[in-house]
């Protein structure tokens, strides 16, 4: 089963429109919620008068900061309805009414008096010690992180050349097609909430319990289906608001974001400023890599810590060097909240790194591919000693040298990708193609520590009719996780997948599971499912042996049945075998802590792009794209290919067209819509080839490694490097829009 392209689970429900997302659900007596949002980037609420709104026919309840008990002021992202608002779009109040249009009309009748506070939009300004504090503790969001291996100072001292550069990336919205929604229903003190979620157990349930001041046992979270999230739907504030409204009304309430709210009050990719310094020795070795990143957090914390940490992965680990250091600082600003979005901070950090390395290759007169072949990290891992104090490390994310990778096929990614795009034959020196439509080839590598969740549970139960149900607490966010987990379960049991079903995304019916993040599902949840299924299979074999009076050496699996060779030849069908188990024995629940202290577990990729730049219009067309990936053994090749293609195309938007813009005088978002935050559409699809090395990883379930996020990492630098190759101009600030290209072409002409 593993390695076969089983049809995606739920595909028939999706193509018929039968699959119900949260916004499609209705309950009897259900009311509709709407949120009043702040028009100011930073202000204190002096007073709120809701009487006119409450008097409107059809309005059932209005909630304001007055409804939040003062002792329930929680940290940052969990708190709702604070007396201070921190970005244009922050929540001020919420209304529930019998109809959505009535709720919306009621928002206009709420009178709010604000005391305007100084607003900060630039992280470099906001991080100054005397800057006006956005949060009581100041504007540094958490302690800046410092991770170091060896000594970069010593490394730079040994170098002959030092290369420095600064790179920036923009606010980039995940913009899943389903605007987030929640539906809350109370029964006594217990809440059931359906919502867009990527972590019912680890994210929403505890956050709702804290936000509402009730024990977690009284909260049931169900994610019926996810209309795309890409990591950004790990936000619970709207769920808490929906539950507060429902509690005040005594009726179920559904709250749906508009598209504009999804852009402004959803969660976006952190904008970043990265400064890189790389030392090269006389013999051409990399003596040190030092990266410093500052990210604007926006108004609230969200997944910032993971994002800033991940941003440094590339600089610390992608190139072989005994000396590497990463410093990351997160700064609160009065901008919309940044959160997690596909590969967290890795695309930002590795955009900087891979454009910088391209520049170094050129300065050393090396073909960019050759430079990477010589210097990328090898299977044995990094040399060098760790300097960072143990207390500041994440145990499963080592920085030190001396630890090998469980597998590392980066060199094959480079070889196969280069061959597919015809690098040797077609790469030319920069700006050397004639005419006004100039072609260029570029490439970039990527690495991602994927797959390691903290704790993963799974339950496998076989019913008396022989059917098997796998229960997992994670969510299929649209990538096909349930399909791959089912394949892993069927493989471990040795039965046809048609006998197996899978249930997930509900805190009441599934064991604790991690959030769907960090490309961890196939690896971590897959390991848990495999272990539970294997345990069940062993139990069945033991039972059959005891029943038939034979030993384990005399039984074997044969196409979903059990073949017995001694004392007599006999075949026991799956159903007969299952009937030998007691009800308790038919169910196996496991909890595992995936990971390894012996190995570093990473996925790898090398991407190659050919672009055509029209020097008259500044338009960039991607002519050809090749994505080569080492994600271990591929569980479902077609779904995996779909995932890589999707990741590449999504990030072409990050590279070329997408940016959420804020007016820096008022803090107002200027383009919270699909017309102006331009995501790629079908006509932007380039000829795209996906290559999987498909070599099993010894640590992963049936050899699988992480896949979901890695395709998003090398895209922007590969495109920037290809544009450089086409027109001889470096772009270090994303997105690379036609106006930026034309401006620089004019400068080039003038010089």
């Amino acid at each position: 089963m593993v390695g076969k392209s089983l049809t995606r689970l739920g595909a028939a429900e999706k193509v018929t429109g039968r699959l119900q997302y949260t916004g499609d659900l209705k309950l009897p007596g259900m009311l509709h919620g709407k949120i009043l949002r702040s028009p100011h980037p930073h202000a204190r609420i002096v007073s709120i008068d809701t009487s006119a709104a409450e008097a409107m026919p059809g309005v059932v309840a209005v909630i304001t900061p007055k409804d939040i008990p003062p002792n329930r002021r929680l940290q940052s992202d969990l708190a709702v309805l604070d007396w201070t608002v921190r970005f244009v779009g922050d929540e001020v109040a919420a209304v529930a009414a019998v109809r959505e249009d009535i709720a919306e009309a009621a928002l206009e009748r709420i009178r709010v008096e604000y005391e305007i506070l100084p607003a900060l939009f630039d992280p470099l300004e906001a991080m100054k010690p005397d800057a006006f504090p956005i949060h009581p503790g100041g504007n540094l969001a958490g302690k800046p992180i410092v991770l170091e291996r060896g000594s970069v100072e010593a490394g730079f001292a040994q170098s002959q050349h030092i290369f420095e550069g600064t790179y920036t990336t923009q606010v980039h919205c995940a913009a899943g097609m389903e605007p987030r929604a929640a539906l809350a229903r109370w029964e006594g003190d217990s809440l059931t909430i359906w919502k867009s979620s990527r972590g019912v157990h680890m994210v929403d349930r505890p956050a709702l319990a804290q936000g509402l001041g009730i024990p977690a046992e009284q909260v049931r979270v169900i994610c019926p289906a996810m209309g795309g999230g890409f990591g950004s739907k790990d936000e619970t504030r709207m769920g808490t608001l929906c539950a507060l409204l429902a509690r005040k009304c005594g009726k179920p309430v559904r709250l749906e974001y508009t598209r504009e709210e999804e852009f402004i009050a959803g969660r976006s990719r952190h904008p970043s400023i990265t400064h890189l310094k790389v030392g090269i020795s006389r013999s051409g070795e990399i003596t040190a890599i030092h990266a410093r990143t500052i990210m604007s957090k926006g108004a609230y914390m969200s997944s910032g810590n993971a994002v800033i940490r991940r941003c440094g992965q590339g600089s610390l680990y992608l190139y072989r060097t005994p000396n590497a250091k990463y410093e990351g600082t997160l700064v609160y600003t009065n901008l919309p909240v940044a959160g997690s979005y596909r590969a967290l901070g890795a695309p930002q950090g590795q955009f900087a790194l891979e454009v910088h390395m391209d520049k170094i290759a050129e300065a050393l007169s090396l073909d960019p591919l050759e430079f990477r072949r010589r210097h990328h990290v090898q299977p044995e891992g990094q040399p060098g000693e760790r300097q960072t104090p143990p207390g500041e490390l994440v145990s499963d994310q080592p920085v030190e040298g001396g630890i090998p990778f469980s597998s590392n096929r980066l060199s094959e990614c480079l070889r196969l990708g280069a061959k597919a795009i015809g690098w040797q034959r077609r790469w030319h020196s920069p700006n050397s193609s004639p005419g006004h439509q100039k072609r260029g080839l570029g490439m970039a590598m990527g690495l991602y520590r994927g797959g390691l969740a903290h704790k993963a549970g799974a339950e496998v139960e076989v019913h008396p009719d022989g059917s098997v149900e796998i229960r997992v607490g994670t969510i299929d966010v649209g990538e096909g996780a349930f399909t791959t987990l089912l394949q892993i379960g069927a493989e471990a049991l040795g039965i046809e997948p048609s006998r197996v079903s899978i249930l997930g995304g509900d805190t009441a019916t599934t064991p604790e599971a991690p959030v769907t993040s960090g490309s961890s599902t196939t690896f971590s949840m897959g390991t848990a499912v495999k272990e539970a299924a294997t345990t069940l299979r062993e139990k069945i074999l033991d039972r059959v042996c005891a029943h038939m009076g034979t030993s384990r050496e005399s039984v074997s699996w044969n196409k979903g049945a059990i073949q017995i060779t001694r004392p007599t030849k006999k075949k026991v069908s799956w159903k007969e075998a299952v009937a030998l188990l007691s009800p308790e024995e038919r169910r196996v629940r496991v909890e595992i802590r995936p990971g390894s202290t012996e190995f570093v577990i990473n996925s790898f990729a090398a991407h190659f792009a050919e672009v055509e730049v029209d020097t008259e219009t500044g338009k960039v067309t991607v002519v050809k794209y090749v994505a080569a990936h080492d994600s271990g053994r591929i569980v479902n090749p077609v779904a995996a290919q779909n995932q890589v293609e999707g990741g590449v195309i999504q990030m072409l938007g990050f590279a070329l067209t997408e940016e959420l813009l804020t007016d820096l005088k008022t803090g107002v978002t200027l383009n919270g819509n699909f017309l102006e935050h331009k995501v790629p559409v079908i006509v932007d699809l380039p000829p795209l080839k996906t290559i999987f090395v498909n070599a099993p990883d010894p640590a992963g379930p049936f050899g699988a490694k992480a896949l979901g996020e890695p395709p998003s990492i090398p895209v922007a630098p590969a495109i920037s490097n290809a544009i450089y190759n086409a027109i001889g101009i470096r772009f270090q600030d994303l997105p690379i829009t036609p106006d930026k290209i034309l401006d620089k072409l004019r400068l080039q002409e003038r010089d």
Partner: protein
Amino acid sequence: MKIKKRWDVFFIVNGKRRSLTIEPHWTLLEVLRDHLGLTGAKKGCDRAECGSCTVLLEREPVYACQVLAVQARGQRITTIEGLERNGKLHPIQQSFVDHDGVQCGFCTPGFIMTANAFLERTRRPSPDQVKQALSGNICRCSAYAKIIESVLAASRRGKRTRA
């Protein structure tokens, strides 16, 4: 002139006559989703940007969020729920299943309805024609390569592409 606040209208939805009282500012999407229980057409933007709400109005694809329900009164409307025949998937639906033209599925009904109207007119389209025809629908999972494969395969597969 007095504006009529309530309209008694009917639509032929997926072949069945459906009568109801509507208000003049309701969109066709609201009527389908909130009043007729047909949630297959999705509200992805409500402002003619994403195509997730695409349905057929007299066989022409329209963004249901941009059609006032009163404008559609008395007309034939086909939604994603109306494509199956006798419990069997429509060839385009089957093709999206077979070629994995789906990730999260939220945009899928809109893509299938647009493809349906397109294949009605264009029997053997080129990949570029498919791209042009579907350029008014957004898939943020960006399953575009597989969507094109699905539509091309459907054009080769079925005689019955008409909704």
